[in-house]
């Protein structure tokens, strides 16, 4: 059996990829050269761990899981701007309506309008009471963004959840 010169490897020289690969292949099958490496510096034996095959199924699970996670992220990115736009528009409409009411002759200005946003505290659809018949809940697999607004006695609840269909 022909044995390679181990000195460059043991002296921590940077071997060209092909030469390193040949050396590791030899070390896998040669007890004598492994013993020499171990006697010089046993930590160099850990180099042999790099060439091991990946177990079956692992690569496919990485691809599938990554693609699914990216799809979820993409969906979030497309929903959020729309949701925030809708909130802004609703607040604007409520403001204009309030201004109109307060400026009518003979009408007392209403109390300040409390506007409460629950965007920072996502709720599930089940936590919000929806008048029967107005909204049909097709599916509610996860969290929804809910915005509650009080205008006088009227309470407005907005739910941003792609699983809901009005």
């Amino acid at each position, binding site marked *: *059996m*022909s*044995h*390679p*010169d*181990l*000195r460059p490897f043991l002296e921590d020289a*940077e071997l060209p*990829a092909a030469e*390193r690969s040949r050396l590791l292949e030899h*070390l*896998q*099958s*040669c*007890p*004598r*050269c*492994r*013993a*020499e490496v*171990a*006697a*010089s*510096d*046993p*930590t*160099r*034996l*850990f*180099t*042999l*761990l*790099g060439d*091991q095959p*990946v*177990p079956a199924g*692992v*690569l496919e*699970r*990485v*691809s599938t*899981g*990554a*693609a699914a*996670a*990216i799809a979820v*992220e*993409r969906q979030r990115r497309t929903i959020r701007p729309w949701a925030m736009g809708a909130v802004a528009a609703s607040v604007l409409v409520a403001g204009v309506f309030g201004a109109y009411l307060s400026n009518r002759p003979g009408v007392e200005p209403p109390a300040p309008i409390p506007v409460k946003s629950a965007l920072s505290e996502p709720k599930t659809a089940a936590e919000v009471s929806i008048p029967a018949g107005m909204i049909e809940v097709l599916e509610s697999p996860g969290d929804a963004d809910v915005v509650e607004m009080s205008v006088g006695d009227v309470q407005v609840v907005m739910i941003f959840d792609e699983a809901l269909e009005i």
Partner: protein
Amino acid sequence: MRDEGELIRRAVDGDMDAVNELIRLKREQVVRVAYQVTGDWEDAIDVSQGVFVRLWKRLHRYDPSRRFDTWLYRITVNAAIDYVRSRGRHLQPLPDEPADLPAHTATRPVGESALDLAALRKAFASLSARLAPKQRMAFVLREVEGLETAEVARIMNVAESTVRNHLLQARRVLRRGLEQEYPGLVPRGSSESGGGES
């Protein structure tokens, strides 16, 4: 074979087919490095999936004048180390290796038998948990993955001398651990020279 640079450019432009192809192209590299750091294939799969999501989110920040693999290695090793830290635990022994078996009975002298890679991996999984994150990163990239010191320095964003220092410290810790807990992997005395013909 599709040109990798072109693939990356398309992925950066938001082409999801290119992103998925890039994942297929790089998944083995990513999951192997993640495994070297976590010591567990299930953890490595979790880390790898997270790495590709992070990669996708940051693709617009990629500087094409730099090596893509350097960037990917950096994301992977950092993610794997963060993962191990977040779990509040050290590396795990492989499931098919009895964890309660005394280390010295689980290994055999490397020079007297066929290579026992499982024993070697068990020793590495156990001992590398004692390394500081930067030492482990340098050791995995340089020794196990076989990258050049200059490349490891770019990945870790440190000087080459710093990488060499991390390696030196890592080898010192690992060697002490091997001698104390895995004496079977360290032969007594020196062996004969392995150079030339036999």
